[in-house]
C-alpha cells in the first residue's frame, strides 16, 4: 500500500488480486486522481472515491472482498459519504444478486444482474454506442453526447429495479443499462479506461463528482 501523494483527488482502486488494473489506475492518474491500490481495508482511508474495477466473475470477487474485509470497509465508506464507482463487473456488484453464479452482490442498488437479453453473440465485446436517457443531466455524463462509443467486454448486465437511476443504455440484441447513478453510487458497464478520450472524460467526471461531493 502506497501513501497518498497529496497531489490530486484521493481515489482508491480495489485490488482483487487478479487481472489487469494497470489501465484503470493509469487512466485515473491521467484525469487528476491521486491513485492508491487497495488490497486491504486500511488503504481506503482518506479516499473520496473508491473504484471497484471489472475483473472476473461475481462470486470469486465477492468471496475475495469478504475474506479481506473489504466488503464491510466499502459499506462503511459509502455510509460515510464516499463516492463509489463500479466499472463493468464492479457495476454489477453494486446490485443485489447475479444470475451468473447466484452470488450476492454488495446490494447498494436494487435490482439483479442477468445475461444481456436477446444478444446475438456473447460475450459482448467491442465498441458500442451509449444512448443517453433523455432527461440525463448527471455530471457523470457531462460532455458525453448521445451515440458516443464505449468499449464493452461482458456477458451479464444489471437490471435496475428503478429505471430512474439509468443514465445511459446500450443495445446488443436487447437493451441494457450501461451507466447508472444514485446518490454517490456510480456504475458503468463499459470500460472507460479502454474507451479512448470519451472514456477518460467519464472518469474525469467521476473524479470531479466525488471531489465536489466530499466538499458538501
Amino acid at each position, binding site marked *: 500500500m502506497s501513501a497518498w501523494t497529496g497531489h490530486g483527488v484521493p481515489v482508491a482502486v480495489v485490488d482483487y488480486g487478479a*487481472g*489487469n488494473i*494497470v*489501465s484503470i*489506475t*493509469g*487512466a485515473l*492518474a*491521467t484525469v487528476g486522481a491521486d491513485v492508491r491500490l487497495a488490497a486491504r481495508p486500511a488503504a481506503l482511508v482518506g479516499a473520496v472515491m473508491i473504484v471497484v474495477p471489472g475483473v472476473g466473475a461475481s462470486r470469486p470477487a465477492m468471496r475475495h472482498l469478504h475474506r479481506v474485509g473489504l466488503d464491510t470497509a466499502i459499506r462503511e465508506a459509502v455510509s460515510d459519504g464516499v463516492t463509489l464507482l463500479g466499472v463493468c463487473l464492479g457495476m454489477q456488484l453494486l446490485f443485489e444478486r447475479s444470475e451468473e453464479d447466484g452470488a450476492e452482490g454488495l446490494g447498494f442498488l436494487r435490482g439483479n444482474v442477468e445475461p444481456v437479453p436477446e444478444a446475438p*453473440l456473447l*460475450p*459482448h*465485446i*467491442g*465498441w*458500442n*454506442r451509449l444512448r443517453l436517457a433523455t432527461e440525463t443531466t448527471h455530471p457523470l455524463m457531462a460532455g458525453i453526447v448521445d451515440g458516443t*462509443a464505449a*468499449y464493452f*467486454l461482458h456477458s451479464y448486465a444489471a437490471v435496475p429495479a428503478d429505471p430512474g437511476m439509468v443514465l445511459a443504455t446500450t*443495445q*446488443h440484441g436487447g437493451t441494457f443499462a450501461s451507466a447508472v447513478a444514485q446518490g454517490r453510487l456510480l456504475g458503468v458497464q463499459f470500460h472507460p*479506461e*479502454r*474507451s*479512448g*478520450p470519451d*472514456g*477518460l472524460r467519464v472518469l474525469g467526471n467521476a473524479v470531479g463528482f466525488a471531489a465536489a461531493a466530499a466538499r458538501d
Partner: protein
Amino acid sequence: MLLRRVIPCLDVADGRVVKGTKFVDLQDQGDPAELAARYAAEGADEIVFLDITAAPERRGTLLEVVRRTATRSFVPLTVGGGVRSEAEMKGVLRAGADKVAVNTSAVLEPSLIKRCARRFGRQCVVVAIDAKRWPGHRGRWEVLVRGGRDRTGLDVVLWAQRAAQMGAGEILLTSIDADGTNRGFDLELLRTVSRAVEIPVVASGGAGGPADFDSAVVDGGADAVLAAGIFHRREYSIGDVKAAMAAAGLPVRIVPSPA
C-alpha cells in the same frame, strides 16, 4: 450494434518498433508506446503489438513496453508473437494487455487455446492465422507458421473452425499473398473464413487505401480491419480511413481530431 474496428499493428523487437515499411526509416518513431499513443489519439479502436524478438530471455523488455503503453493509450491492446504457455499469457495480460494472440504455438499445441480460454476467458484469446493460397487446391488456403516460413498442410477454414471450437475469441486472419502489396485484402479468403466461424474475424494483409477497409467489411465480412504500412508511412491517418468507412455507411467510432 458493435462498431467496426480499425486497428494499427506495430512490429516490436527488443522493445522498439522495427519495421512496418520497407521504404521509410522509422528510427525516429521507434518507441512503441509513443506510436501507440499517437494512433489512439487519432481514433484507433485497438492497438496490436506483434513481438518479433528472437530471444525469449529478452521478453522482459516487451512486458515493459506493454506496461508503458497500457498506462497512456486508453484503448484495448492486443499482444502477439511467441507466446507458448499459459504462464506467458498471464504475464502479458498482467502487464496490461487485453488480449493475447497465439499463432505457431496454437498450431503445434491446439489445447493451449482451450487452456488459456478457460483460465483467462475466451475474449483474451486471439488465434492469428497466416494463410496462403494453396497451389493445386482451388479456393483453399494453407496455414503457414513461424512467420510464414513453414507449411503445415492444414486447411485455413478447418483450422479457424477448430480454433473457434477450442475457445478462440477472435481470428486474426493475415493473407500472406496480399501482405505488403497494398493492393487490397484477399476478399475471397475473408469471406470464406468469416462465413465459416461465428467469432469475429480481423482482416489483415494488403491494405492500400481507405476503400480497402470498406470492402474488407462489406465484401469480406470482416468485423475489424488491421493495417501497418499505410499508417506508419502516414499515407492515410486512422481518421481518413474511418471517415471513408462512415461515408460508406459503416458504423464506426469517429474521434474528433485534437484542436
